[in-house]
Protein backbone atom coordinates (compact mmCIF):
# COMPACT_ATOMS: atom_id res chain seq x y z
CA UNK A 1 0.00 0.00 0.00
CA UNK A 2 1.39 3.32 -1.04
CA UNK A 3 -0.31 5.63 1.41
CA UNK A 4 1.99 7.05 4.02
CA UNK A 5 1.78 6.20 7.67
CA UNK A 6 -0.38 9.14 8.66
CA UNK A 7 -2.51 8.93 5.55
CA UNK A 8 -6.16 8.89 6.33
CA UNK A 9 -9.34 7.83 4.64
CA UNK A 10 -12.60 9.29 5.84
CA UNK A 11 -15.86 7.52 5.62
CA UNK A 12 -19.05 9.50 5.79
CA UNK A 13 -22.57 8.33 6.22
CA UNK A 14 -25.21 10.93 6.54
CA UNK A 15 -28.59 9.38 6.32
CA UNK A 16 -29.23 9.24 10.00
CA UNK A 17 -29.27 6.00 11.78
CA UNK A 18 -29.59 3.23 9.24
CA UNK A 19 -26.47 2.46 7.34
CA UNK A 20 -27.10 1.61 3.71
CA UNK A 21 -25.39 -1.21 1.84
CA UNK A 22 -23.52 1.39 -0.23
CA UNK A 23 -22.08 2.92 2.89
CA UNK A 24 -21.09 -0.46 4.26
CA UNK A 25 -19.16 -1.12 1.07
CA UNK A 26 -17.51 2.28 1.41
CA UNK A 27 -16.27 1.49 4.92
CA UNK A 28 -15.09 -1.96 3.84
CA UNK A 29 -13.18 -0.37 0.96
CA UNK A 30 -11.60 2.18 3.27
CA UNK A 31 -10.46 -0.54 5.65
CA UNK A 32 -9.02 -2.50 2.72
CA UNK A 33 -7.18 0.52 1.36
CA UNK A 34 -5.50 0.91 4.71
CA UNK A 35 -4.10 3.79 6.65
CA UNK A 36 -6.11 5.46 9.37
CA UNK A 37 -9.85 5.16 8.79
CA UNK A 38 -12.28 7.58 10.39
CA UNK A 39 -16.03 7.02 10.16
CA UNK A 40 -18.36 9.98 10.41
CA UNK A 41 -22.10 10.27 10.42
CA UNK A 42 -24.76 12.90 10.86
CA UNK A 43 -27.61 11.55 12.89
CA UNK A 44 -29.31 11.09 16.26
CA UNK A 45 -27.66 9.54 19.30
CA UNK A 46 -28.67 6.04 18.14
CA UNK A 47 -26.31 6.44 15.20
CA UNK A 48 -23.41 5.87 17.57
CA UNK A 49 -24.19 2.16 17.38
CA UNK A 50 -23.65 2.28 13.63
CA UNK A 51 -20.28 3.91 14.10
CA UNK A 52 -19.27 1.24 16.61
CA UNK A 53 -20.29 -1.47 14.11
CA UNK A 54 -18.00 0.12 11.54
CA UNK A 55 -15.17 0.34 14.00
CA UNK A 56 -15.72 -3.35 14.63
CA UNK A 57 -14.68 -4.12 11.07
CA UNK A 58 -11.60 -1.96 11.28
CA UNK A 59 -12.30 1.76 11.31
CA UNK A 60 -10.01 3.42 13.85
CA UNK A 61 -12.21 6.15 15.22
CA UNK A 62 -15.59 7.75 14.83
CA UNK A 63 -17.22 11.13 14.73
CA UNK A 64 -20.90 11.63 15.42
CA UNK A 65 -22.46 14.88 14.27
CA UNK A 66 -25.41 14.61 16.59
CA UNK A 67 -28.86 15.75 15.55
CA UNK A 68 -32.18 15.45 17.32
CA UNK A 69 -33.49 13.04 14.70
CA UNK A 70 -34.84 15.58 12.22
CA UNK A 71 -33.84 15.20 8.59
CA UNK A 72 -31.25 17.62 7.30
CA UNK A 73 -31.30 18.58 3.65
CA UNK A 74 -28.34 17.94 1.39
CA UNK A 75 -26.86 21.42 1.70
CA UNK A 76 -26.91 21.58 5.50
CA UNK A 77 -25.64 18.02 5.76
CA UNK A 78 -22.75 18.79 3.45
CA UNK A 79 -21.92 21.98 5.34
CA UNK A 80 -21.75 20.17 8.67
CA UNK A 81 -19.55 17.48 7.18
CA UNK A 82 -17.25 20.06 5.63
CA UNK A 83 -16.81 21.74 9.01
CA UNK A 84 -15.94 18.43 10.61
CA UNK A 85 -13.47 17.55 7.88
CA UNK A 86 -11.76 20.91 8.18
CA UNK A 87 -11.45 20.34 11.94
CA UNK A 88 -10.16 16.76 11.67
CA UNK A 89 -8.39 16.71 8.34
CA UNK A 90 -6.59 16.66 6.04
CA UNK A 91 -7.74 13.40 4.47
CA UNK A 92 -6.36 11.67 1.38
CA UNK A 93 -9.64 10.09 0.48
CA UNK A 94 -13.22 10.89 1.42
CA UNK A 95 -15.69 8.11 0.68
CA UNK A 96 -19.48 8.25 0.60
CA UNK A 97 -22.10 5.66 -0.09
CA UNK A 98 -23.84 6.47 -3.36
CA UNK A 99 -27.43 6.90 -2.25
CA UNK A 100 -30.11 6.80 -4.88
CA UNK A 101 -30.93 10.21 -6.21
CA UNK A 102 -34.26 10.42 -4.50
CA UNK A 103 -32.59 10.36 -1.11
CA UNK A 104 -31.10 13.63 0.08
CA UNK A 105 -27.78 11.96 0.62
CA UNK A 106 -27.09 11.62 -3.06
CA UNK A 107 -25.84 15.17 -3.49
CA UNK A 108 -23.85 15.42 -0.31
CA UNK A 109 -20.61 13.98 -1.63
CA UNK A 110 -20.64 16.33 -4.58
CA UNK A 111 -21.36 19.37 -2.41
CA UNK A 112 -18.64 18.42 0.07
CA UNK A 113 -16.14 18.07 -2.78
CA UNK A 114 -16.94 21.50 -4.18
CA UNK A 115 -16.70 23.13 -0.75
CA UNK A 116 -13.27 21.61 -0.18
CA UNK A 117 -12.12 22.20 -3.75
CA UNK A 118 -11.60 18.49 -4.36
CA UNK A 119 -12.33 16.35 -7.43
CA UNK A 120 -15.32 14.01 -7.10
CA UNK A 121 -16.29 10.81 -8.93
CA UNK A 122 -19.58 9.05 -8.26
CA UNK A 123 -21.29 5.71 -8.83
CA UNK A 124 -18.19 3.62 -8.36
CA UNK A 125 -17.94 -0.12 -8.62
CA UNK A 126 -14.16 -0.28 -8.42
CA UNK A 127 -11.42 1.81 -6.84
CA UNK A 128 -7.67 1.41 -7.28
CA UNK A 129 -5.40 3.76 -5.39
CA UNK A 130 -2.17 4.19 -7.38
CA UNK A 131 0.26 6.37 -5.51
CA UNK A 132 -1.10 9.91 -5.53
CA UNK A 133 -3.86 9.15 -8.02
CA UNK A 134 -6.91 6.95 -7.99
CA UNK A 135 -8.30 4.97 -10.95
CA UNK A 136 -12.02 4.26 -10.65
CA UNK A 137 -14.70 2.49 -12.60
CA UNK A 138 -18.23 3.94 -12.71
CA UNK A 139 -21.20 1.74 -13.26
CA UNK A 140 -23.13 2.61 -16.44
CA UNK A 141 -25.78 -0.01 -17.13
CA UNK A 142 -23.95 -3.05 -18.39
CA UNK A 143 -20.56 -1.40 -18.74
CA UNK A 144 -17.96 0.60 -16.82
CA UNK A 145 -16.62 4.07 -17.49
CA UNK A 146 -13.03 4.57 -16.37
CA UNK A 147 -12.18 7.84 -14.63
CA UNK A 148 -9.00 8.99 -12.93
CA UNK A 149 -8.47 11.64 -10.33
CA UNK A 150 -5.58 12.97 -8.28
CA UNK A 151 -5.61 12.55 -4.51
CA UNK A 152 -7.00 13.96 -2.28
CA UNK A 153 -10.43 13.22 -3.78
CA UNK A 154 -14.04 12.50 -2.91
CA UNK A 155 -15.50 9.21 -4.17
CA UNK A 156 -19.02 7.84 -3.85
CA UNK A 157 -19.37 4.09 -4.13
CA UNK A 158 -22.09 1.60 -5.00
CA UNK A 159 -22.99 -1.67 -3.37
CA UNK A 160 -21.19 -4.39 -5.25
CA UNK A 161 -17.84 -2.61 -4.99
CA UNK A 162 -16.80 -5.31 -2.56
CA UNK A 163 -18.28 -7.80 -0.13
CA UNK A 164 -18.19 -6.24 3.34
CA UNK A 165 -16.76 -8.53 5.98
CA UNK A 166 -18.81 -9.79 8.89
CA UNK A 167 -17.50 -8.26 12.11
CA UNK A 168 -15.75 -10.55 14.55
CA UNK A 169 -16.78 -10.40 18.17
CA UNK A 170 -13.28 -9.49 19.38
CA UNK A 171 -13.49 -6.66 16.83
CA UNK A 172 -16.81 -5.52 18.29
CA UNK A 173 -15.44 -5.62 21.82
CA UNK A 174 -12.38 -3.60 20.81
CA UNK A 175 -14.63 -1.12 19.03
CA UNK A 176 -16.36 -0.31 22.30
CA UNK A 177 -13.24 1.43 23.52
CA UNK A 178 -12.14 3.09 20.28
CA UNK A 179 -12.39 6.90 20.35
CA UNK A 180 -15.69 8.41 19.28
CA UNK A 181 -16.11 12.19 19.29
CA UNK A 182 -19.55 13.76 19.48
CA UNK A 183 -20.21 17.20 18.05
CA UNK A 184 -23.57 18.98 17.97
CA UNK A 185 -23.74 21.23 14.91
CA UNK A 186 -26.48 23.81 14.70
CA UNK A 187 -29.18 23.01 12.16
CA UNK A 188 -29.45 25.81 9.66
CA UNK A 189 -32.56 26.87 7.75
CA UNK A 190 -33.55 24.12 5.36
CA UNK A 191 -33.48 25.33 1.78
CA UNK A 192 -35.22 22.21 0.52
CA UNK A 193 -37.79 22.30 3.23
CA UNK A 194 -39.79 19.13 3.66
CA UNK A 195 -43.45 20.00 4.11
CA UNK A 196 -45.02 16.59 4.27
CA UNK A 197 -44.73 12.99 3.20
CA UNK A 198 -47.58 11.21 1.55
CA UNK A 199 -48.02 7.53 0.93
CA UNK A 200 -49.59 7.33 -2.51
CA UNK A 201 -52.90 5.53 -2.94
CA UNK A 202 -52.83 1.90 -3.79
CA UNK A 203 -49.94 1.09 -1.51
CA UNK A 204 -51.81 -1.66 0.33
CA UNK A 205 -50.94 -5.30 0.35
CA UNK A 206 -53.42 -6.19 -2.40
CA UNK A 207 -51.79 -7.15 -5.64
CA UNK A 208 -53.34 -5.48 -8.63
CA UNK A 209 -54.73 -8.16 -10.92
CA UNK A 210 -53.69 -7.82 -14.53
CA UNK A 211 -56.05 -9.47 -16.99
CA UNK A 212 -53.94 -9.90 -20.07
CA UNK A 213 -50.53 -9.46 -21.67
CA UNK A 214 -51.37 -5.94 -22.86
CA UNK A 215 -52.03 -4.86 -19.28
CA UNK A 216 -48.73 -6.38 -18.20
CA UNK A 217 -46.79 -4.57 -20.89
CA UNK A 218 -48.50 -1.29 -20.01
CA UNK A 219 -47.31 -1.69 -16.41
CA UNK A 220 -43.82 -2.47 -17.63
CA UNK A 221 -43.80 0.68 -19.70
CA UNK A 222 -44.94 2.78 -16.76
CA UNK A 223 -42.08 1.34 -14.72
CA UNK A 224 -39.65 2.22 -17.46
CA UNK A 225 -38.46 -1.31 -18.07
CA UNK A 226 -40.20 -2.18 -21.36
Amino acid at each position, binding site marked *: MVLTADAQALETKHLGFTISPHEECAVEEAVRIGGEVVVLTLGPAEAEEQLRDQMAIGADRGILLKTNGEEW*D*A*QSTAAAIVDAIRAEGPFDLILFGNES*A*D*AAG*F*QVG*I*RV*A*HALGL*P*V*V*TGLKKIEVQGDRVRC*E*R*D*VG*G*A*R*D*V*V*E*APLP*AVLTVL*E*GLNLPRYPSVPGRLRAKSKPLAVVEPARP*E*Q*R*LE*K*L*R*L*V*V*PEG*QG*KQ*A*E*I*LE*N*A*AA*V*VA*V*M*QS*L*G*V*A
Partner: protein
Amino acid sequence: MIVCFVEDDELSAQAVGFARTLGEVRAVTFAGAYQPAAWAKALAAQEAEAIVAAGSDRGNELLAHVGALLDQPFAANVTAIDGDVVTRVRWGGSLVEEARLHGAPKLLTVAPHVHAPAEFDPEVLEAVDDGSPKVLERVEESSGGVSLRDAKVVVSGGRGVGSSEGFAIIEELAGLLGGAVGCSRVVTSAGWRPHADQVGQTGTKISADLYIACGISGATQHIAGAKGAKKILAINTDPEAPIFASADYAVIGDLHEVVPAISAELRRVRG
Protein backbone atom coordinates in the same frame (compact mmCIF):
# COMPACT_ATOMS: atom_id res chain seq x y z
CA MET B 1 -36.12 31.06 -19.47
CA ILE B 2 -35.61 27.47 -18.42
CA VAL B 3 -32.46 25.61 -19.32
CA CYS B 4 -32.92 21.88 -19.74
CA PHE B 5 -29.96 19.57 -20.06
CA VAL B 6 -30.72 16.84 -22.55
CA GLU B 7 -29.25 13.72 -24.00
CA ASP B 8 -30.56 11.75 -26.94
CA ASP B 9 -33.06 9.64 -25.00
CA GLU B 10 -36.70 9.28 -24.04
CA LEU B 11 -36.23 10.53 -20.47
CA SER B 12 -34.71 13.79 -21.71
CA ALA B 13 -37.64 14.22 -24.08
CA GLN B 14 -40.00 13.81 -21.15
CA ALA B 15 -38.00 16.34 -19.14
CA VAL B 16 -38.30 18.88 -21.95
CA GLY B 17 -42.05 18.26 -22.09
CA PHE B 18 -42.31 18.86 -18.37
CA ALA B 19 -40.12 21.96 -18.48
CA ARG B 20 -42.25 23.49 -21.22
CA THR B 21 -45.21 23.55 -18.82
CA LEU B 22 -43.19 26.02 -16.75
CA GLY B 23 -42.07 28.35 -19.50
CA GLU B 24 -39.80 28.76 -22.47
CA VAL B 25 -37.13 26.11 -22.65
CA ARG B 26 -33.61 26.04 -24.07
CA ALA B 27 -32.55 22.45 -24.54
CA VAL B 28 -28.80 22.20 -24.19
CA THR B 29 -26.28 19.43 -24.47
CA PHE B 30 -22.53 18.86 -24.59
CA ALA B 31 -20.13 17.13 -26.88
CA GLY B 32 -17.12 15.07 -25.97
CA ALA B 33 -16.21 12.92 -22.98
CA TYR B 34 -18.43 13.17 -19.92
CA GLN B 35 -16.88 15.56 -17.43
CA PRO B 36 -19.60 16.39 -14.91
CA ALA B 37 -17.89 19.24 -13.02
CA ALA B 38 -16.95 21.04 -16.21
CA TRP B 39 -20.32 20.53 -17.85
CA ALA B 40 -22.04 21.74 -14.70
CA LYS B 41 -19.96 24.93 -14.71
CA ALA B 42 -21.23 25.67 -18.18
CA LEU B 43 -24.81 24.99 -17.15
CA ALA B 44 -24.49 27.10 -14.04
CA ALA B 45 -23.23 30.01 -16.09
CA GLN B 46 -26.47 30.15 -18.08
CA GLU B 47 -29.05 32.81 -17.27
CA ALA B 48 -32.15 30.94 -16.19
CA GLU B 49 -35.03 30.87 -13.74
CA ALA B 50 -34.68 27.14 -13.57
CA ILE B 51 -32.20 24.50 -14.62
CA VAL B 52 -33.77 21.15 -15.30
CA ALA B 53 -32.72 17.67 -16.41
CA ALA B 54 -34.15 14.17 -16.57
CA GLY B 55 -33.98 12.14 -13.36
CA SER B 56 -31.36 9.87 -14.86
CA ASP B 57 -27.99 9.11 -13.28
CA ARG B 58 -26.32 11.78 -15.38
CA GLY B 59 -29.08 14.34 -15.00
CA ASN B 60 -29.07 13.96 -11.24
CA GLU B 61 -25.30 14.11 -11.02
CA LEU B 62 -25.03 17.22 -13.17
CA LEU B 63 -27.71 19.08 -11.27
CA ALA B 64 -26.03 18.14 -7.99
CA HIS B 65 -22.83 19.73 -9.27
CA VAL B 66 -24.76 22.80 -10.37
CA GLY B 67 -26.33 23.03 -6.94
CA ALA B 68 -22.91 22.80 -5.32
CA LEU B 69 -21.42 25.43 -7.63
CA LEU B 70 -24.26 27.88 -7.09
CA ASP B 71 -24.81 26.91 -3.46
CA GLN B 72 -28.48 26.40 -4.21
CA PRO B 73 -30.83 23.55 -3.19
CA PHE B 74 -31.66 20.89 -5.77
CA ALA B 75 -34.80 18.69 -5.79
CA ALA B 76 -34.39 15.35 -7.54
CA ASN B 77 -37.11 13.23 -9.18
CA VAL B 78 -39.83 15.88 -9.21
CA THR B 79 -43.31 14.99 -10.41
CA ALA B 80 -44.90 18.42 -10.08
CA ILE B 81 -44.00 21.99 -9.20
CA ASP B 82 -46.30 24.77 -8.10
CA GLY B 83 -44.59 28.04 -7.38
CA ASP B 84 -41.77 27.01 -5.08
CA VAL B 85 -43.47 23.84 -3.82
CA VAL B 86 -42.20 20.68 -5.46
CA THR B 87 -43.67 17.20 -5.28
CA ARG B 88 -41.10 14.50 -5.64
CA VAL B 89 -40.96 10.72 -5.38
CA ARG B 90 -38.77 8.74 -3.04
CA TRP B 91 -38.09 5.05 -2.52
CA GLY B 92 -39.07 4.07 -6.04
CA GLY B 93 -42.50 5.58 -5.84
CA SER B 94 -43.62 4.25 -2.49
CA LEU B 95 -43.28 7.65 -0.87
CA VAL B 96 -44.12 11.11 -2.14
CA GLU B 97 -42.68 14.26 -0.60
CA GLU B 98 -43.88 17.83 -0.84
CA ALA B 99 -41.16 20.35 -0.17
CA ARG B 100 -40.50 24.04 -0.54
CA LEU B 101 -37.55 24.83 -2.76
CA HIS B 102 -36.00 28.02 -1.40
CA GLY B 103 -33.61 28.84 -4.17
CA ALA B 104 -32.90 30.62 -7.41
CA PRO B 105 -32.43 29.43 -10.01
CA LYS B 106 -34.74 26.46 -9.28
CA LEU B 107 -32.75 23.26 -9.72
CA LEU B 108 -34.66 20.08 -10.34
CA THR B 109 -34.67 16.79 -12.19
CA VAL B 110 -37.84 15.22 -13.56
CA ALA B 111 -39.04 11.80 -12.43
CA PRO B 112 -39.45 9.28 -15.27
CA HIS B 113 -42.84 8.93 -16.95
CA VAL B 114 -44.61 11.93 -15.43
CA HIS B 115 -44.90 13.78 -18.71
CA ALA B 116 -45.20 12.95 -22.35
CA PRO B 117 -42.02 13.34 -24.39
CA ALA B 118 -41.59 16.47 -26.45
CA GLU B 119 -39.58 17.24 -29.57
CA PHE B 120 -36.48 19.32 -29.08
CA ASP B 121 -33.50 20.65 -30.98
CA PRO B 122 -30.61 20.90 -28.57
CA GLU B 123 -27.96 23.60 -28.52
CA VAL B 124 -24.45 22.34 -27.98
CA LEU B 125 -22.82 24.23 -25.15
CA GLU B 126 -19.11 24.50 -24.76
CA ALA B 127 -17.62 23.13 -21.60
CA VAL B 128 -14.11 24.21 -20.78
CA ASP B 129 -11.99 21.29 -19.61
CA ASP B 130 -11.04 22.37 -16.09
CA GLY B 131 -9.00 19.31 -15.24
CA SER B 132 -11.80 17.75 -13.21
CA PRO B 133 -12.34 13.98 -13.52
CA LYS B 134 -13.65 12.89 -16.88
CA VAL B 135 -14.43 9.58 -18.51
CA LEU B 136 -11.36 8.15 -20.16
CA GLU B 137 -12.78 5.02 -21.71
CA ARG B 138 -15.67 2.62 -21.54
CA VAL B 139 -15.08 -0.97 -20.62
CA GLU B 140 -17.77 -3.51 -21.41
CA GLU B 141 -18.60 -6.02 -18.70
CA SER B 142 -16.56 -9.16 -19.27
CA SER B 143 -19.37 -11.55 -18.37
CA GLY B 144 -21.96 -11.92 -21.10
CA GLY B 145 -25.43 -11.09 -19.93
CA VAL B 146 -26.67 -9.05 -17.07
CA SER B 147 -25.75 -10.03 -13.54
CA LEU B 148 -28.64 -11.03 -11.33
CA ARG B 149 -27.58 -8.63 -8.59
CA ASP B 150 -27.48 -5.57 -10.81
CA ALA B 151 -30.23 -6.35 -13.27
CA LYS B 152 -33.02 -3.84 -13.55
CA VAL B 153 -35.43 -6.61 -14.49
CA VAL B 154 -35.37 -10.18 -13.26
CA VAL B 155 -37.60 -12.88 -14.71
CA SER B 156 -37.66 -15.78 -12.33
CA GLY B 157 -39.03 -19.31 -12.50
CA GLY B 158 -40.06 -21.73 -9.80
CA ARG B 159 -41.43 -25.23 -9.48
CA GLY B 160 -44.22 -24.33 -11.92
CA VAL B 161 -41.77 -24.12 -14.80
CA GLY B 162 -41.50 -27.86 -14.62
CA SER B 163 -38.15 -28.58 -16.22
CA SER B 164 -34.85 -27.16 -17.36
CA GLU B 165 -36.20 -26.86 -20.91
CA GLY B 166 -39.20 -25.00 -19.57
CA PHE B 167 -36.91 -22.08 -18.81
CA ALA B 168 -36.62 -21.24 -22.47
CA ILE B 169 -39.67 -18.98 -22.30
CA ILE B 170 -38.29 -17.34 -19.14
CA GLU B 171 -35.00 -16.65 -20.90
CA GLU B 172 -36.87 -15.24 -23.88
CA LEU B 173 -38.77 -12.73 -21.81
CA ALA B 174 -35.67 -11.77 -19.86
CA GLY B 175 -33.81 -11.22 -23.09
CA LEU B 176 -36.53 -8.95 -24.46
CA LEU B 177 -36.43 -6.86 -21.29
CA GLY B 178 -32.64 -6.79 -21.10
CA GLY B 179 -32.88 -8.52 -17.77
CA ALA B 180 -31.50 -11.51 -15.93
CA VAL B 181 -32.96 -14.95 -15.31
CA GLY B 182 -33.54 -16.00 -11.71
CA CYS B 183 -35.01 -19.01 -10.01
CA SER B 184 -36.18 -20.38 -6.69
CA ARG B 185 -34.41 -22.91 -4.52
CA VAL B 186 -36.63 -25.74 -5.71
CA VAL B 187 -35.27 -25.21 -9.20
CA THR B 188 -31.62 -25.28 -8.17
CA SER B 189 -32.22 -28.33 -6.00
CA ALA B 190 -33.79 -30.00 -9.00
CA GLY B 191 -30.74 -29.13 -11.05
CA TRP B 192 -32.68 -27.18 -13.68
CA ARG B 193 -30.62 -23.99 -13.14
CA PRO B 194 -27.27 -23.26 -11.47
CA HIS B 195 -27.08 -21.87 -7.96
CA ALA B 196 -25.84 -18.57 -9.38
CA ASP B 197 -29.38 -17.98 -10.64
CA GLN B 198 -31.01 -18.56 -7.30
CA VAL B 199 -32.90 -15.67 -5.76
CA GLY B 200 -33.51 -15.93 -2.07
CA GLN B 201 -32.21 -15.99 1.45
CA THR B 202 -29.39 -18.36 0.57
CA GLY B 203 -28.93 -17.11 -2.98
CA THR B 204 -28.79 -13.65 -4.48
CA LYS B 205 -30.68 -10.68 -3.13
CA ILE B 206 -31.84 -8.60 -6.03
CA SER B 207 -32.53 -4.91 -6.33
CA ALA B 208 -34.35 -4.81 -9.65
CA ASP B 209 -36.97 -2.32 -10.67
CA LEU B 210 -39.25 -5.23 -11.59
CA TYR B 211 -39.21 -8.83 -10.43
CA ILE B 212 -41.39 -11.24 -12.37
CA ALA B 213 -42.01 -14.45 -10.41
CA CYS B 214 -43.35 -17.25 -12.61
CA GLY B 215 -44.69 -20.37 -10.99
CA ILE B 216 -43.08 -19.48 -7.68
CA SER B 217 -45.16 -20.12 -4.58
CA GLY B 218 -43.38 -17.47 -2.51
CA ALA B 219 -41.77 -19.10 0.49
CA THR B 220 -40.45 -16.60 3.01
CA GLN B 221 -36.85 -17.44 2.18
CA HIS B 222 -37.46 -16.68 -1.47
CA ILE B 223 -39.22 -13.40 -0.74
CA ALA B 224 -36.26 -12.41 1.39
CA GLY B 225 -34.16 -12.36 -1.75
CA ALA B 226 -36.78 -10.69 -3.90
CA LYS B 227 -38.04 -7.96 -1.61
CA GLY B 228 -35.31 -5.58 -2.75
CA ALA B 229 -37.16 -5.26 -6.02
CA LYS B 230 -39.19 -2.11 -6.38
CA LYS B 231 -42.15 -3.93 -7.89
CA ILE B 232 -43.08 -7.58 -8.01
CA LEU B 233 -45.30 -9.22 -10.62
CA ALA B 234 -46.37 -12.75 -9.78
CA ILE B 235 -47.71 -15.24 -12.29
CA ASN B 236 -49.26 -18.34 -10.74
CA THR B 237 -52.22 -20.65 -11.26
CA ASP B 238 -52.93 -20.73 -7.50
CA PRO B 239 -54.65 -17.57 -6.27
CA GLU B 240 -53.83 -18.60 -2.68
CA ALA B 241 -50.10 -18.76 -3.31
CA PRO B 242 -48.19 -16.84 -0.61
CA ILE B 243 -46.32 -14.83 -3.24
CA PHE B 244 -49.40 -12.76 -3.92
CA ALA B 245 -49.18 -11.30 -0.44
CA SER B 246 -45.88 -9.70 -1.44
CA ALA B 247 -46.69 -8.89 -5.06
CA ASP B 248 -47.70 -5.56 -6.52
CA TYR B 249 -49.21 -7.10 -9.64
CA ALA B 250 -50.77 -10.48 -10.18
CA VAL B 251 -51.63 -12.63 -13.13
CA ILE B 252 -53.63 -15.74 -12.25
CA GLY B 253 -52.77 -18.14 -15.01
CA ASP B 254 -50.41 -20.76 -16.34
CA LEU B 255 -46.97 -19.29 -16.93
CA HIS B 256 -46.52 -21.54 -19.96
CA GLU B 257 -49.23 -19.48 -21.65
CA VAL B 258 -48.83 -16.14 -19.94
CA VAL B 259 -45.08 -15.67 -20.37
CA PRO B 260 -45.00 -16.25 -24.13
CA ALA B 261 -48.06 -13.98 -24.44
CA ILE B 262 -46.19 -11.16 -22.69
CA SER B 263 -43.18 -11.68 -24.95
CA ALA B 264 -45.42 -11.57 -28.02
CA GLU B 265 -47.09 -8.35 -26.85
CA LEU B 266 -43.71 -6.74 -26.20
CA ARG B 267 -42.63 -7.56 -29.71
CA ARG B 268 -45.86 -6.19 -31.08
CA VAL B 269 -45.63 -2.79 -29.38
CA ARG B 270 -42.01 -2.42 -30.38
CA GLY B 271 -43.05 -2.86 -33.98
